[in-house]
């Protein structure tokens, strides 16, 4: 704080502090407090708001606990998001390692650019591309049929479609943290491990992964949070059997018109995601500050 004032003077220093305060207060704290406020109040006709029935209670949250279909979708969303994070990790780790340690600078620049270009397009449009690819009479089925892998077109929409769409949508959020952390690994450590006779597997398990742990945790946290809060992929690529919890929240707000119950559902999702993230970080002994970097 003193450093800020010393460097920018009192006028600019105060301005910076005010901007940070507005950001935190107006864009982080206030919306969340409002959500908590909504979640704890009953859904009342306008006339009753502020009246004797407008009291805080846990009714909206308890409703979720007692509603078995919503509860099942909720837990499914959580573990499916974890699965998305894991699959994205499996796809990204080898790619990140190759980009950071094996590829020539030119090649890795080209590949990184190629990976980034699709992200210049809106997420909805990118998901629509998958919608076309995975269609019943779409290119993927046509390809597999012509190769003889399948003899009947497959209905991809549903769990498979949602997983594919999400892994694709969040690949960069996983790739870049891991790439950055592997890139900072001194090449000679990998060579030393090899020189001492370590197999590829052991070199990764004992040298590369421990070094990249913070990056891997960061990528997994990002991907998990984004997947749990995702709406587009399940809405477009899902089937009735693969509903996502965000769709239920959406329905409460825009179909059911019950903002209070919607806010309560969103709050539960937020709390559970935070818990999963903090527990995961604890298990892998990574600090939240490492992730923030």
């Amino acid at each position, binding site marked *: 704080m003193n450093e800020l004032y010393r460097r920018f003077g009192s006028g600019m220093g105060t301005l910076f502090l005010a901007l940070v305060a507005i950001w935190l207060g107006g864009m982080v704290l206030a919306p969340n407090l409002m959500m908590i406020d909504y979640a704890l109040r009953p859904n009342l006709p306008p006339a009753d708001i502020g009246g004797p029935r407008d009291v805080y209670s846990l009714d909206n949250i308890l409703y979720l606990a007692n509603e078995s279909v919503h509860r099942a979708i909720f837990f499914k969303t959580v573990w499916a998001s974890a699965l998305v994070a894991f699959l994205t990790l499996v796809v990204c780790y080898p790619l990140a390692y190759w980009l950071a340690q094996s590829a020539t600078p030119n090649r890795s620049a080209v590949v990184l650019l190629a990976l980034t270009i699709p992200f210049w397009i809106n997420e909805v449009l990118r998901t629509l591309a998958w919608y076309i690819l995975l269609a019943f009479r779409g290119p993927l089925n046509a390809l597999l049929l012509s190769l003889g892998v399948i003899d009947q077109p497959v209905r991809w929409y549903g769990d498979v479609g949602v997983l594919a769409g999400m892994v694709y949508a969040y690949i960069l959020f996983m790739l870049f943290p891991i790439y950055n952390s592997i890139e900072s690994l*001194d090449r*000679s*450590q990998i*060579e*030393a*491990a*090899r*020189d*001492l*006779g*370590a*197999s590829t597997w*052991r070199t990764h398990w*004992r*040298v590369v992964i*421990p*070094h990249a742990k913070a990056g891997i945790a960061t990528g997994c946290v990002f991907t998990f949070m984004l997947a749990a809060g995702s709406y587009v992929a399940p809405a477009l690529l899902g089937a009735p059997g693969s509903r996502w919890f965000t769709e239920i929240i959406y329905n409460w707000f825009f179909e059911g018109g019950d903002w209070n119950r919607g806010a309560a559902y969103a709050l539960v999702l937020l709390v559970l995601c935070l818990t999963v993230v903090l527990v995961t970080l604890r298990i892998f002994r990574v600090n939240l500050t490492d992730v923030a970097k």
Partner: protein
Amino acid sequence: MSHSVELQHVGMAFGRTRAVTDVSLTVQGGEFFSILGPSGCGKTTILRMIAGFLQPTEGKILIGGRDMKGLGPDQRPTAMIFQSLALFPLMPVWENIAFGLEARGVAKPARKAKAEELLKLVALEGFGERMPGELSGGQRQRVAIARALAVEPQVLLLDEPLSALDLKLRQRMRAELRALQKRTGVTFIYITHDQSEALAMSDRVAVMSAGVLQQVGSPRELYDDPATPFVARFVGETNAISGRVISLDGGMAIVETAEGRLRGRIGHGLSPGASAKLYVRPEALAHGEEGANCLTATIDRIDFEGAFALAYGRLENGIALIASIPSTELASAPAIGVPASFSFRDENAVVLPDE
């Protein structure tokens, strides 16, 4: 007896860039062998070819008489100590040392015992549970050595491992490395650009320049009998005086130079009439006129170095001259700015043909 290492006409090209050209040499088993040269001379490439990180594009490498073609670093009886040491920062010291044994499937108690034994060998008992980041530069050095020795290599390859240390520590580590090599009997191949390091530690030294092997010999041979002008200039300080060879007789060459006729030993490939240089070391120059070889120089400055002082001067035709004066004789040192005479004995100079 540890394995010998033999290089037969080894060459290495990276695309169109040649890193190493036709190098043949033999390192005896149990020898402390250094490869000396300026940066970019190809010495690290040679080391990486011996280690198996690179496959030579020409020639053969034999370790213990066995052709190493196609074998990776994990399949060769070598261990490497990297310039950065490459200790694993997230493993305690003992796991670092035992990593090679872990990779070979040795059980944990046996690994731990071996690590303790090696820690004792490098005088780091009780440091097993520390992390590498908690150690000093010299201690990390010793951990790296212990880690390499743990896999019981026949040949230890060292890539300038002392370059990050300060001078005092470097000098102590030189003695330690040398003693360790004698005690273990492992063949050491040591890469350095520091000629005093190579001269002080090695049984024999190979000097390289621009990917070409210049000379292989004992430190004394390199210093006293350089085979090429590059070796004469690179190993130790020297003065070079150009001229033309008039005659060769009785092992001595007479060279006509701007300073008059000078005599020195006949170097490799010298013939009468050739344009050549006479090389004479600063410590071979004595202040005063004695004998036939006499040079007159004006002294610009004298740098006191401790045991000796270096007098920097110019010959009459402007060529730089360096003479070393023992500190005990500084009282009779030449005065600055005044012409002074220096002489040297025939056998302390060598005449080499120009390249």
